[in-house]
């Protein structure tokens, strides 16, 4: 397997053993996002405690990239503050939309840097972003409550 590959062990790891999968109570917002071009789906719930992300729970189906991305999202956001988590989302989005030209900030992204290889494939970028966009959406909604 080549180093620049999209299929980092880490992604396969998350795909096969997803972290925090399943829909849990309590939650302030639930969203359902679909990628119409490839049929990937995610249902995602956010539970906030004050400024803190207490839980991100989800169910979904699709390719390993979309599923692993949800797992990594769970890991990175749970326990952080809303503000911190949104800056991770921003950095991840920037990386994904950078067409392989953007140097990822490893300090911010942690495990999510494994997705760097995906950025070169526009058709896959949406797979990686699906759960992350859903998360952003859910945070907005739960804050609005």
């Amino acid at each position, binding site marked *: 397997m080549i180093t620049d*590959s999209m299929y980092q062990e880490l992604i*396969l790891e998350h795909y096969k053993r997803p972290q925090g999968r399943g829909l849990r109570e309590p939650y302030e917002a639930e969203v359902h996002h679909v990628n119409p071009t*490839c049929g990937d789906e995610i249902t995602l719930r956010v539970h906030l405690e004050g400024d803190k992300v207490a839980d991100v729970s989800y169910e979904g189906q699709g*390719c*390993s990239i979309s599923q692993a991305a949800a797992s990594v999202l769970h890991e990175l956001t749970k326990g952080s503050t809303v503000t911190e988590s949104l800056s991770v989302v921003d950095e991840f989005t920037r990386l994904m939309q950078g067409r392989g030209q953007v140097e990822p900030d490893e300090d911010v992204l942690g495990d999510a840097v494994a997705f760097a290889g995906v950025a070169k494939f526009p058709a896959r970028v949406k*797979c990686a972003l699906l759960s992350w966009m859903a998360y952003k959406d859910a945070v907005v909604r739960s804050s609005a409550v």
Partner: protein
Amino acid sequence: MSFDVERIRKDFPVLSRELPGGRTLVYLDSGNSSQKPTPVIETMREHLAMHYSNVGRAMHVLGSESTEAYEAARDKIAAFVGAPSRDEVVFTKNASEALNLLAYSLGNRSNTDPRFTLGEGDEIVISEMEHHSNIVPWQMLAQRTGATLKWFGVTDDGRLDLSGDVITDRTKIVSVTHQSNVLGTVNPVAEIVRLARQAGALVALDASQSVPHHPVDVAALGADFVAFTGHKMVGPSGIGVLWGRQELLEAMPPFLGGGEMIEAVWMDRSTYAPVPHKFEAGTPPIVEAIGLGAAVDYLTGVGMEAIEAHERDLTAYAMRALQEISGLKVIGPTDLGDRGGTISFTLEGIHPHDVGQILDDQFGIAVRVGHHCARPLHLRFGIPATTRASFYLYNTTGEIDALVRGLHQVQKVFA
């Protein structure tokens, strides 16, 4: 005719390329776009370097060299598809533009030819196995004009379902694919033409997947319009073709307006050039048309019958080999009659995106994954996506073996 695939492969520089990580390229994505042989690349380079100028309008040595080469390409392409007249070959930028040109020629309020008027109550007929490029232009036409869009369904084994009364007296045009870019199915053109003629409707064929792979004679096909695209037939990007019967092209309103497509222009009105120039506004894809001319020379040199036979062999070989993989399901006809060298399939429990990416990552095998711009067809089969292997003159049974090995490995990775 002896078909020497190893000799042919030498004509395509990329096929001897080593990919990053020391992988050899196994290119099984020609249905998406084909690779280019040296004669095409060199013809373009030589023209750009030494003979380039604008066509038609220029009256100097370079202008005449470019014009001659550009119009000679039209002759070659006309001959390649059996067009009764060279003036029936309209250059576009791709098959999509060709189909849109046609769609925009209907329901144009400034044209009164009854064959091209379109409005509420009128019907457009396509099929469920179309490429988006033969769906969306007709949806947009229906939206602009109030006409109704109808379609033939697809049977479980991937054939066009011509039963039912889809075509009626209100049908103005029937536009279907000659060969499906997903199923490989070759459609029964004669029967479609017969049904359309009974209803007095025009017939258009999307031949993007047939012209590159089979000897095609537009006159014999009997349709009114045939669209195809250069990049899938060892030609360059940026060039496509709409063939149409001359009297129909003449009756159609112009599509894009501008230089080259006019006869005379006043501020308040214009008269238009004879076909095909009426449909070629502005500076055309000059070098691209010339490259496509070199491409059909190359294909003719190899022989379209020979290419067709070679692909038939590859398809038979691949069909046998693939069907032995557990959990692999071919979407489309598995019998070899009336089908081309395109095989789409699903692999149980593994998303096609993952299949494609592992094949590429680990083995340098290029296949296409997704809905291949035919989402409604995938909806019809209740699947979001397939993996597609498509063959061309330069592919080998060895490459199919590599694909099979690769698929086994994919199953291992995701086991």
